[in-house]
């Protein structure tokens, strides 16, 4: 009756599963490593056939070209402008979106009120609107008020785009905080606001940091809206900036890879910082309604 595998049999199975998992995940990560490696290789190794699979020589040429340290390169990419605009648009929008999203998430997590479900659903559905569809009317409206080709206009859009997901995540994080604390604060005469500000908000800081990083990355990586709203380097961020490496028939893959690596820095920090909070944040808020 009992067919449970025990002892050496089970251990052999474990070894097989481990090996399979390692192979699969290395294969999944391989394309990324290839891009990162490309940034540090000489062009002669990148565009040859047969391909050079293992790098023979590493170089910082791509970065020297990008930052204008190589006198032979005439035209260079405005990487400083992209960096500035990306930091401004993502930074400003993250601070505002997380503040507003946290307030909304707290309301949904703690209070009973009319239209609770309707409002929540409405906010979440606003997130489902594709950026392309939004970019058309925003372009027309922003043109009238002088917000096109403007980093602040871009930040404003990213605030709205990021609020729904932040509210969802924070709703989940606030529910994980035991309510007894708040209840005793009410008994001690705390108002709703000071209970939130003094007790629940400090307790939700790990969740808040997760939400902030999500918002920052969403803005940092956004392409559809900025590609319509930004005309030149005054407002272009990294994603449309990548096109500076493409000409009509040729692409400077190495330059692009080099800029990609710069673009990835915040994401790498994100993976290191929030690996743990990520899971509980994503799943909790949604499971318990």
């Amino acid at each position: 009756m009992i067919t449970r595998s025990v002892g050496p049999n089970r251990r052999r199975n474990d070894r097989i599963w481990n090996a399979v998992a390692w192979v699969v995940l290395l294969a999944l990560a391989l394309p990324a490593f290839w891009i990162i490696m490309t940034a540090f290789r000489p062009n002669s190794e990148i565009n040859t056939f047969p391909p050079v699979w293992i790098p023979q020589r590493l170089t910082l040429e791509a970065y020297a070209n990008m930052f204008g340290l190589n006198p032979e390169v005439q035209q260079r990419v405005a990487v400083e402008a992209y960096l500035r605009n990306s930091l401004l648009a993502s930074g400003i929008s993250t601070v505002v979106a997380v503040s507003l999203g946290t307030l909304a998430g707290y309301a949904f997590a703690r209070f009973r009120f009319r239209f609770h479900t309707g409002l929540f659903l409405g906010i979440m559905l606003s997130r489902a609107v594709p950026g392309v569809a939004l970019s058309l009317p925003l372009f027309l409206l922003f043109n009238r008020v002088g917000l096109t080709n403007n980093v602040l206009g871009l930040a404003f859009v990213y605030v709205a785009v990021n609020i729904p997901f932040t509210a969802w995540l924070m709703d989940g994080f606030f529910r994980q905080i035991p309510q007894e604390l708040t209840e005793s604060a009410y008994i001690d005469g705390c108002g709703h606001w000071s209970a939130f500000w003094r007790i629940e908000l400090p307790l939700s800081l790990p969740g808040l940091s997760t939400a902030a990083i999500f918002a920052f990355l969403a803005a940092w990586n956004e392409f559809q809206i900025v590609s319509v709203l930004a005309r030149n380097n005054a407002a272009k961020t990294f994603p449309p900036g990548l096109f500076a490496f493409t000409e009509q028939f040729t692409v400077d893959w190495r330059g692009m890879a080099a800029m990609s690596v710069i673009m990835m820095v915040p994401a790498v920090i994100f993976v290191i910082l929030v690996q743990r909070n990520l899971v509980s944040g994503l799943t909790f808020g949604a499971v318990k309604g």
Partner: protein
Amino acid sequence: MAAKVKAKQQNAVAQGTTQNRIDAGLFPFLLILPAIIVIVLVIAFPLLYSLYVSFTPYELLRPNSLNFTLGKALRNYQKLLNDDVFWRSLWNTVIFLAITVNLSYLLSLALSQLLARVTVGQSILRTLLMVPMMFAPILVGMQFRWFFNANVGLVNNFLISVGLIQEQGQIAWLVDVPLGMISIIIASIWMNIPVLTIILLAGTLSLPAETFEAAEVDGASGWQKFRFITFPLLAPFSYIALTIMSLDIARAFDIVRIMTDGGPARRTEMLWTYITRLAIEDTKFGLGSAMAWITVSLSVLFTLYFFRQLVKARIVR
């Protein structure tokens, strides 16, 4: 780590059932108000404006064309319904979504079951799993455009190296019609897998061990345990994963735009790329807005569907 996640989840379930929300009059509305104002200003109002524009023959280079005539209000929609490229882009989008969503989910489900069994190097493997998350969608597109490039791409070079194809017989991945679609789908799945797998893995690790032990005592096979215990109990997590994916699915636009840009001859055109072509490149904002509204309606319905499933799954649990 596994035990921690599990304890957290069980704790969470216990709290969720006993939690009562408080009545606080207008206070919650005040908390939500700023968020609503921003969403109305940046999303709701512009969308309504684009609905208005979609009823006009507006072209960017002819400012006078932004006027509404009742008799001609539906002309843009009529044009689209008679437009082969529109139907093709709708069809392509449906095919793309159906394949990408299902395959992403199935592969992530398999990967999560695999990872749940791993005994060596769990944390390194999880970090590896998150590597695609470091890539902006546009980078994913660029990366795969390069890999699938007919002349200098890695995929063809690899196939030549191992002798599967000849040097003259390079496969035009991004130019050929079904292959172009397949390339885009592969890139999208690569981008979707991490978040889905992380959620499904967390779900799997949170399942009660006693149930599995009881099943093992009853002699259930590995497949039976998965089919009759793991999979049904994972339902809420599956729907969270699918809801998050449906919210983010338009990110695939970046990938399509970069990899094929709807080409060749508009054969891989999807709703998103066709909007851009009509409105931005051909400056036909009225027509583009009509197209955008059709897309918005479909996206919202799609997401709403997953949300309702999510609510249902929650009640079962």
